[in-house]
């Protein structure tokens, strides 16, 4: 028995499979087919039912033998993914007819997937490339399983499309409306967000240098800046729309206001971050204000400035999208979201949100990459 290494996920998965098998029919049509054996009723999983149970149980049992972790993870991955795909494939055309065994089997597959993730996260690969791949694979699997549950539940239970469309139809929608999405991205991201972000960050930075130069200004501005960061600045959006019109200018203005203070506060904090010894050193060189600023204090403030740039990348996107709720020309991500919600085209809304999420992540990612390159010397970066 020493060759066995039970895991609760695998055991529970087997139990769930058995319960599901005893329960019987996986869908309403299958029940109907069972009660009228003479009629030819189409029902899901006519041929794949046994196969799914078989794969799930075999994968679960195999995973409990002592194996190389990599092999165990591979078996679990293959088993859970195949079952999930078969489940999702089979339910097509029979939406809303799923019965308990459908969910039990899905849960069993998910448990195997969880076990797979657990095995992967406990692995300690020797090579760095593999470690990075693992670091990406684990959250990626987690994300995939969220999508699988989403898809399976919305289809299996036949959740109204308006309430929550399955991810597959959102995907189809994205592919079908690329030109519209692109126009929205161009309006919102490349005009409102980017221009506002650059202007807001630049003016916050300049204000920070001024506040650094004049102590009185710093003492007056910083408490105000700290307070403003807690305020719902987004509320200035209607005013900006009145002042600068419906086009991207008003949204960029909102973004400028939203990004100004985080940049100001962080840069001022960063300029105070250089050590006493380093500043004494510059003093022994009789270095002037600008030399000290350029050679010591700005580089030392780098991590703080990038922190503000990262915070602002998110704020800018939120500001631009929400500002569009207050009025836009007929293009833009916020405009699209609010109008398509009104028309109950929920899949388009989800498509827009997916694109916004992607744009937000890419924006943040680019800033983070530049940060890694620019503040390579900082312990938080070189530590890993």
């Amino acid at each position: 028995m020493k060759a066995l290494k039970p895991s609760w996920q695998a055991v529970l998965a087997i139990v769930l499979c058995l319960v599901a098998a005893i329960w019987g029919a996986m869908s309403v049509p299958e029940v109907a087919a069972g009660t009228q054996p003479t009629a030819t009723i189409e029902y899901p999983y006519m041929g794949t039912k046994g196969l799914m149970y078989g794969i799930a149980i075999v994968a679960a049992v195999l995973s409990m033998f002592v194996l190389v972790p990599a092999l165990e993870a591979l078996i679990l991955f293959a088993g859970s993914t195949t079952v999930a795909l078969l489940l999702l494939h089979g339910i097509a055309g029979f939406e809303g007819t799923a019965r308990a065994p459908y969910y039990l089997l899905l849960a069993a597959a998910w448990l195997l997937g969880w076990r797979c993730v657990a095995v992967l996260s406990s692995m300690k690969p020797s090579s760095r490339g593999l470690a990075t791949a693992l670091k990406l694979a684990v959250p990626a699997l987690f994300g995939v399983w969220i999508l699988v549950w989403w898809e399976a539940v919305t289809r299996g239970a036949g959740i109204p499309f308006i309430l929550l469309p399955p991810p597959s139809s959102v995907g189809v929608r994205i592919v079908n409306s690329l030109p519209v999405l692109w126009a929205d991205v161009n309006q919102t991201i490349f005009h409102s967000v980017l221009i506002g972000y650059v202007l807001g960050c630049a003016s916050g930075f300049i204000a920070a240098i001024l506040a650094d130069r004049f102590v009185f200004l710093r003492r007056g501005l910083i408490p105000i800046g700290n307070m403003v960061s807690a305020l719902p600045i987004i509320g200035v959006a209607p005013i900006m729309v009145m002042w600068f019109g419906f086009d991207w200018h008003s949204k960029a203005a909102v973004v400028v206001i939203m990004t100004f203070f985080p940049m100001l506060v962080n840069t001022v904090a960063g300029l105070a971050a250089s050590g006493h010894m380093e500043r004494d050193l510059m003093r022994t060189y009789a270095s002037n204000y600008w030399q000290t600023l350029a050679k010591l204090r700005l580089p030392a403030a780098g991590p703080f400035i990038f922190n503000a740039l990262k915070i602002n990348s998110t704020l800018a996107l939120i500001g631009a999208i929400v500002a569009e709720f207050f009025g836009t020309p007929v293009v833009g991500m916020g405009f699209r979201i609010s109008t398509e919600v009104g028309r109950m085209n929920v899949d388009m809304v989800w498509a827009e949100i997916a694109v916004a999420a992607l744009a937000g992540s890419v924006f943040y990612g680019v800033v983070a990459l530049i940060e890694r390159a620019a503040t390579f010397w900082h312990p938080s970066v070189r530590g890993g």
Partner: protein
Amino acid sequence: MTAVKPAVVAASKLGLTFQTNDGPVQALSNVDLTIGKGEFVSFIGPSGCGKTTFLRVIADLEKPTSGSITINGMTPEQAREKRAYGYVFQAAALFPWRTIERNVALPLEIIGLPKAEQAARIKRTMELVNLAGFEKKYPWQLSGGMQQRASIARALAFEADLLLMDEPFGALDEIVRDHLNEQLLQLWAATDKTICFVTHSIPEAVYLSTRIVVMSPRPGRVTDVIESTLPRERPLDIRETPEFLAIAARVRDGLRAGHSYED
């Protein structure tokens, strides 16, 4: 013996009082001291005796509140603006975003030396502190001893005649410290600089110095000045000679006399 040499540092009745929340603290009181060219002077004493403060006054990092002090006949501020000294801190204080080479170049960039001159000086000083070959490394890629050597190179690149060192080897382990002490003596012999060196290690002070200034706290003052009788050529094992031990004993007595342990 030292009186005939021109004075590099001349302090008379120097006093400095800090205003703190717990009332005034007399960090320096009535310090009279003259340091001649080419001397190696160590300042030793318990913490709070004002040895670092004295060094910072020379460097114009603190302003004295009474008495007078001149550096090469100038006020500390003029001396600083003329870049009359190099300063080595307790920690290496290298900028982590610059390579070793560029760290050494920092003061030269601030004075505005031409690139070629900068390169020549960097090469010279890096060789002087035995760091040739590490020019392109970043500070955090080097050991603590190497970092401190780089910071000495940075102070030397200045080519000022006066070198102020504030417990530069305090954070290093004994073996590295011995090694660096030896190198520092060789460097001093090779360059004929005036060195002011703050330490709280008696063997280090005795091994390095031509003169040892013993200080004591509350108020910070000079209690004894000991002329070293050791030759300028000093191998490490000089520390086991009776002569060395005699000076060390005198320093220890001086520290004990000026320093009451009642609190």
